Every structure is written in structure tokens, then in C-alpha cells.
């Protein structure tokens, strides 16, 4: 039963105030999800307001998608229903900040950039380089467990979140975890929310662990020639005592796109391994020496990128999944996760399968972590993407991995599930969803197995 427009208006205005709710096309245009436009966008200014908005929506059967900076709205299946965008941009207070303790707590709408600016003054940072970081909020980053190549050394939000407060569809604000760096009191509900993409509750506050900014960084580029050599390099680097901050494999297509940004000489036309070392000068010198030795052993030459060029390149590498799709909207962006031992093997398979269908692959792989972002662009005419992705997914699942769709045209997403084959835990996940969101109003249908 559809709820009358005036009831919705009065309801939301009563919670957040009239000026904090906007209706209709121009206000909501930027909040489209897979082409769908919400009826309105609500901007709560407190955790309690956010919880009340959810309660009202649940009582009235309004489907809600929680939004921070809107940088990851393309991830997931098309929503079954989308009435309200719950946007946290007006919740950006710093709740506590203890530089000496290396901890901070902020409201979820705090942008990544604002937070880093605050920390930098004290020589600290949150060592993440997630896609879309110009716009991304901390709440969104945590809800997506988003990370980038820095994951090699520092992990993901899952390793940095100390506690959080969550607005529930019951209208409550509940706490999990705490503010200290070590804490095992009670069930670790935060883990459920991290990476839940707003389908269980809405993260309204997060407490985070902070890190000192390393003194220096240097980027080394190792030409790999073939994927076989790339594999050899990966094994040697990961078996060495080196502790790279970032370690990625760019296939020839990707390196052709990135190299000009690093103001390096003409296109490489071969796969490359990019390594970022961080720490003191002595550590960086040692890394260079070891990499040169490693490179010699497999016939790979080592190039150094200048500071400015490498900073710009790493930004582009981290943000690959975003810009690749933006520059060619017909493209697909996929994320493969796999045991690290299978990285090159799967890439080679993907290149081959795609090549057979005249589809071009561009890929960046965190080879020390086992995360591969693939951009696929088809040639005009035939549309081989659906069977191709289905095949690749099956192959990767056989290797113990998973292939998810990060960005794709809606028509594609209507045919292929964004997440892949859910494991035997699905029933438990559905029960959790039913307990936290009994009316099914939070991003309905967007998550794994129809959740």
C-alpha cells in the first residue's frame, strides 16, 4: 500500500526539520542508483535523527539507501525499491580525537579527505586509499570495507575500526566495540556491519585506530615482460624480508594508461610490478637495492618514479574502478578475490577468454593480497559480456575465489548477480538481515543472495 505523499513529508519534516528534506528531480538527481531516482533525500544531523528516519521508513514501508559521498552507489544489484536517500553529509562532527593515543571517533558523514586533513597536522593518517576518496565519507568506506593498494601493509577498515554506533530500523542507536585498541567484550557486531553496504543498519559513528605517516616513500617499477615473470617477481618479493606498502601488477593495458601520469617514457606494452616502499631513508635504500637484485635475477629492469608522478599514479591506480567505468560507461568493472598464488593464472585465463570474445581487459592486481580489479570493454555489435563474466566467475570460484561486479550498465546487472554464488552461510545471513531489518527496507535486493 503506497503511503500518501503528505504523510511522508510531515513525517520526515517532524524528525529532521523541513529544510533537511528535499523532494524531486533536481535535488535527487545525483543520488540515482542504477537509474532509479528516490522520492526524496533526507539529511539527518544526529545519530538519533537518523535512527528515527529509519524507524519511520520501516513503519511506512519506505525503502532507504544510506549514502555518504555517493562514490560507491554502483556496487550491488539494482535495488528492488528505492524511496528515500538517507544522506549523512551533515553529520561530520569529530567526537573525540586523541593523537597521543592514536585514536579518533567521528560521525559517519565526515569525509575521508577532511579526516586526513585533521590528522596530517599531527603527523598521523588513516592508511587507506579507497576508490573515490575525493568524495567518500568514513561511514561509506566502513560500510563497504573499501580499501586500495595500501591494504598490502595496513589492511582494511576491518582492521582499523575500534567501535561504532549504528542506527537501526527499530529507531535505536546501538553501540558495538569501543574506543580502545584492544577489546573483546561481547559479540563483535561491528564486523557484521563492516562491508554490509547499509543493508543491516546505518553506521552513524565510527571510532578508528590511527597511524603515524611514514617519513618517506619511494615507488619502484619493475618491468615484467610476461605474466610468468610477473609471477616470479611476486613470489620473490613476498618471500623477501621487504615490507612494501603497496604492491600491484599492472597489465600492459593498465601500464599504458598509468605511465604517462607518472611522466615515464612511452608506453611499456608489458606488464609491470609497482612497489611502494615507505619508512626511513635507510629502509628505502635497502628496498631499492633488494629490488634491483631481484629484478636482475629474472631479467626485469627497475625504474624509479619521481615523487609527484608516483603520487598521481597511485591515486589513479587506487581509483581505477571508478574512472575506468566513468570514461567508458559501457564497460564493466569487476573485482576478483583469490588466493595470491592464483593471481597471474587467473589474469591469463581472463585475458584469453576475453580475447576470444574480442573484449579488451585492463587490470590492476594487488598481488600480495589477491585482489584484482578488471575493466572489460567489448567491441561494437555483439554482447558477449554475460556469458563471459559467468564463465570467468565459475573459473575463479573453482580456484577458491569470487568475482563481483563493481560497475556495469543496468542492463547487464539485471542479468548477472553482482556478488556471485553465495556460500553455505547464506541462510544465516538471511536470518541476520531479517532480524535487523524485518521490513526489508534497507537497500532491498542489493546485497548477496537477494538480501
Amino acid at each position, binding site marked *: 500500500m503506497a503511503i500518501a505523499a503528505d504523510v511522508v513529508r510531515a513525517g520526515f519534516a517532524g524528525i529532521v526539520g523541513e529544510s533537511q528534506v528535499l523532494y524531486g528531480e533536481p535535488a535527487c538527481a545525483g543520488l540515482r542508483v542504477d537509474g532509479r531516482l528516490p522520492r526524496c533525500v533526507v539529511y539527518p544531523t544526529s545519530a538519533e535523527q537518523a535512527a528515527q528516519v529509519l524507524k519511520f521508513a520501516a513503519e511506512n514501508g519506505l525503502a532507504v539507501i544510506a549514502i555518504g559521498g555517493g562514490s560507491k552507489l554502483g556496487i550491488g544489484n539494482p535495488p528492488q525499491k528505492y524511496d528515500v536517500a538517507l544522506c549523512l553529509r551533515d553529520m561530520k562532527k569529530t567526537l573525540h580525537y586523541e593523537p597521543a593515543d592514536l585514536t579518533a571517533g567521528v560521525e559517519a558523514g565526515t569525509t575521508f579527505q577532511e579526516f586526513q586533513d585533521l590528522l596530517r597536522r599531527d603527523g598521523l593518517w588513516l592508511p587507506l586509499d579507497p576508490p573515490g576518496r575525493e568524495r567518500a565519507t568514513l561511514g561509506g568506506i566502513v560500510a563497504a570495507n573499501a580499501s586500495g593498494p595500501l591494504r598490502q601493509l595496513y589492511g582494511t577498515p576491518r582492521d582499523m575500526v575500534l567501535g561504532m554506533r549504528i542506527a537501526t530500523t527499530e529507531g535505536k542507536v546501538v553501540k558495538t566495540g569501543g574506543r*580502545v585498541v584492544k577489546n573483546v567484550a561481547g559479540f563483535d557486531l561491528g564486523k557484521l556491519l563492516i562491508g554490509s553496504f547499509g543493508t543491516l543498519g546505518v553506521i552513524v559513528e565510527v571510532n578508528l585506530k590511527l*597511524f603515524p605517516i611514514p617519513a618517506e616513500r619511494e615507488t619502484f617499477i619493475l618491468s615484467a615482460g610476461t605474466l610468468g615473470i610477473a609471477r616470479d617477481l611476486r613470489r620473490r618479493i613476498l618471500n623477501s624480508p621487504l615490507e612494501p606498502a603497496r604492491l600491484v601488477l599492472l597489465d600492459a593495458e593498465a601500464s599504458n594508461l598509468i605511465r604517462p601520469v607518472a611522466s615515464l617514457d612511452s608506453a611499456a606494452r608489458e606488464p609491470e610490478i609497482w612497489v611502494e616502499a615507505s619508512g626511513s631513508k635507510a629502509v628505502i635504500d635497502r628496498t631499492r637495492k633488494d629490488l634491483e637484485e631481484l629484478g636482475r635475477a629474472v631479467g626485469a629492469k627497475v625504474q624509479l618514479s619521481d615523487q609527484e608522478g608516483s603520487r598521481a599514479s597511485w591515486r589513479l591506480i587506487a581509483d581505477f574502478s571508478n574512472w575506468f567505468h566513468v570514461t567508458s560507461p559501457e564497460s564493466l568493472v569487476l573485482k576478483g578475490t583469490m588466493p595470491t598464488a592464483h593471481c597471474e593464472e587467473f589474469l591469463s585465463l581472463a585475458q584469453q577468454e576475453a580475447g576470444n570474445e574480442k573484449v579488451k581487459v585492463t587490470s590492476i592486481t594487488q598481488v600480495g593480497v589477491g585482489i584484482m580489479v578488471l575493466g572489460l570493454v567489448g567491441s561494437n555489435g555483439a554482447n558477449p559480456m554475460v556469458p563471459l563474466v559467468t564463465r570467468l566467475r565459475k573459473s575463479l570460484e573453482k580456484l577458491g575465489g569470487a568475482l563481483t561486479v563493481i560497475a556495469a550498465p543496468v542492463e547487464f546487472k539485471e542479468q548477472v548477480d553482482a556478488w556471485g554464488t553465495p556460500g553455505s552461510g547464506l541462510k544465516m545471513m538471511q536470518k541476520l538481515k531479517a532480524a535487523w531489518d524485518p521490513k526489508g527496507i534497507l537497500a532491498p535486493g542489493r546485497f548477496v543472495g537477494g538480501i
Partner: protein
Amino acid sequence: MKRTPLIKELTAIMGREAVLSRPEDLMLYEYDALSALRTPDAVVFPTTTEQVVRLVKLAADQKTPIVPRGAGTGLSGGAVVTEGGIVISLARMKKILEIDLESQRARVQPGVVNTDLSLAVADGGFYYAPDPSSQKACTIGGNVAENSGGPHTLAYGVTTNHVLGLEVVLPDGEVIRAGGKCWETPGYDLTGLLVGSEGTLGIVTEITVRLMRRPEAVETMVAIYDRVMDATRTVVAITSEGITPAALEMMDGFTLRAVEQATHAGYPMDSAAVLLIEVEGLGEAVSEQARQIEAVCGRNNVRAVRRAKTPDERALFWKGRKNAFGALGRISPNYYVQDGVIPRTRLPEMLEYIEAVGRKYDLRIGNIFHAGDGNLHPLLMFDARDRDQSQRVVKAAQEIMGRCAELGGSITGEHGVGVEKNELMPLIFSEDDLEIQRQIKSLFNPSGLFNPGKVLPTGKMCGEIRVQVGSGA
């Protein structure tokens, strides 16, 4: 169900060798490292997931509680029975199922002893990072249940940061796999929820963990202080200057004297406190950090800093630390180990507070703890035969926990809640916070037969430590 038919059914599933039912055998399973409560009706030793499933189904049919158990080294009573029932010991499920050094993973059964996994991968240059003090006895399954820590979790995180996949038998007998070898699998992070759930949500029958490369260089130092305050200030300074040691441990004078008498690790008997500091990594980074740390110690009135010159000396420094609880057992009939966390910058005032609590209750309190992450382990000495003293110990511990909560900390950093602190949970969680935890528990464990009476408040003794101290220590 009456005991005899239950034993018969259990024997039918397990075979005679895998069931204990004589009173003298069962008595041994009344305890873990915290205390003793009730005697179980039976103890069984499955060797396969299939057997665990059959046990779980039998228990569900018979409405009998089930308590999973590893090595019984836990410090919060997680593995003791509260109302009878079957203890499922996973100690015989101790196979290492797979080692994949290239992907830096191992798949193990829950009964594998923590150190044994590290030993199994040592030749390849790898190890399993979480290192509880009991690591030579405790099992990976128990570590998963408690989300155990250890000295080196300062740099590398606790168990949850190293566990990627689980096979779990749910209370209805269904077997699910959560996570796997990869860092990410689509869907909710059930692995993350199950780690630290203390056996109340399911029984873990297989674990996939991350292995780490052994660092190239290690430097272990002991910094000796004449005043406790100087040692705690050093800890604060090391953290706030952005130096990240692999471990940063502290012992006060009382504790270190007991340790020294027991292990002869070379801690000076007349000092007020020592810090045990370890840095690891690339040789270049280690020598720089060691120098920086020495400088910080120097600015904080350290008497001397000793560096371990040989691996043997390093092992000796650590032996002192890891055997500290045992050493205190030599000088006091009983002790009660506490486990609280505070923001690290509050260490100096917190130690003063603990000292004041000791004076107030006329108790000797030793301090040994993971200073680098603000995880305190005050040890309250007493004689369990003295009822009044035992009661004072519980009250004193409670006040210390209350203070941790007031400072924005936690009532447990690594030992778990168990039966010890479930009634203290309201110190840090509101009724709404606890309600959502209860909901999670009843989703997985609707009959409440899995490890009953643990983690969440029962409401029987609100805001109190429920343990009978002295029975086990």
C-alpha cells in the same frame, strides 16, 4: 535425559575411548584457568566434524547443554560448565589440514596447539602471529573462541585479524563455511562475528588462518626504571612519537622480583619497573627504531637499557614475561588475574589508581601487562582459605574494571567475558546495546544450549563479577 542413557548414546556415536564419564575423570573438566564451577555429565573427544554434528543433534534432542573446550587455558571461565551437560573437547581434532605458503595460509582443526602451527611452518620462514602467553598449550580453536591476544598483537592485531575462514557446526547441526582463504568473500562477515563469540554461537571445526613471514631482524630490550611513573611515561611517549614496537610489555617491581626468582631472566631485583620492548622487521628499520626507543627511555629517566645479545638471551627475557603468572603462583597461595583496557595515555594515572585500590582493600597487587595497547593485567594476590580476603579481591577487581570503563576503556582486552564478567557488561553497554547482542545470540542459538550462562548478563547478579575466585588459580 538421565546420565546413564546419555552416556550410552554418546558412546554409540563416539566409541568408548572418546567418552569420559567416571566422576574422577569428569572432575578434571570442572576447571579452566579461571576457576571451577560444576561437574559436566560427560566429556567427549570427537575427531571429525561429522561426530560433532551428531553430538550437537543429540544434545538438541535431549535438551542438554554443550560446552566446547580446547586446552582449558582460558582465563574467563569460557570452557567450564554452568549447569551440567556435555563438554565437547576439541583436543583430538588436531590435524593441520593444509599449508599453502605461497598464499600464506594454513587450514587447521581447532585442537591444533598455537605453537605447533608456528613450528610446522617455521622451515619455510613463516609463523602464526597471535601469541597468547599460554601458546605452548592453548589451541587455535580456543583462541578463535576468545579472540585471544598476546604481546605481539600490538603490531599485528589479535586473533580476528588473522582468521579468514571457519567451518562451524551450528546449534541445529547444520555445518556452514564462512570466509575462506581469500581476504574477502561476498556477504556478511560471519567469520568476524564468530571469532570471539566464546562458543555460544556455534562450534568451530576448521579454521583458515593467515601466516606471516618471520621478520629478518629482531631487537629485544629491557628498560629498567627506578620509578614506575617513568616507565609508564615512556610507554606514552613511545606511542605518541609514532614508534610502533612489535611488543611493549611492562612489569612492576613486585612482579619482576617474583619472576626473577623463578626464571633468572636478569631483571634487577631492586628496580621499580621494567619494560620489555621488541622491534622487528627489516634490519635497517629495527636498528633505527631501537635507537629511537633508547632515546625515549633516556628522556624518561631510565636507569639502564639492556639489549638481548643472543637469541638465548632474548628467549630468556621473554621466558620471564611469559611465565610471570606461574612465578607469582610461587609466592602467593592464590592470585586473580584481571584483564582491562584503557586508553594508553592514561596508564600513569591508572597505575596509581590500582595502587590505591590495593591499599583500600589491603591487598598486594602486581602489575604485568601489554603496555603498548593499554591492556592491563593486575594480579591480585590472596589466600583462598581466607573468605574475607577472597571477597575483598572480587570487590577490588570490580573497582578496577569500573575505572577502566570510566576512562573509556574495556572490561576485557583478550581474556574474554565468559562467566567471569558477563554481569559487568552493563559497565560499558547500555540495555539497547545488550539487547541487540542477545538477539544475535538467540538467532544462532535459540535453545540457549550452546555454552549457556556466558558472555551476556544473566541478570542474576547485576554489575558484579560472578566468579568464585581462588578455586582454580
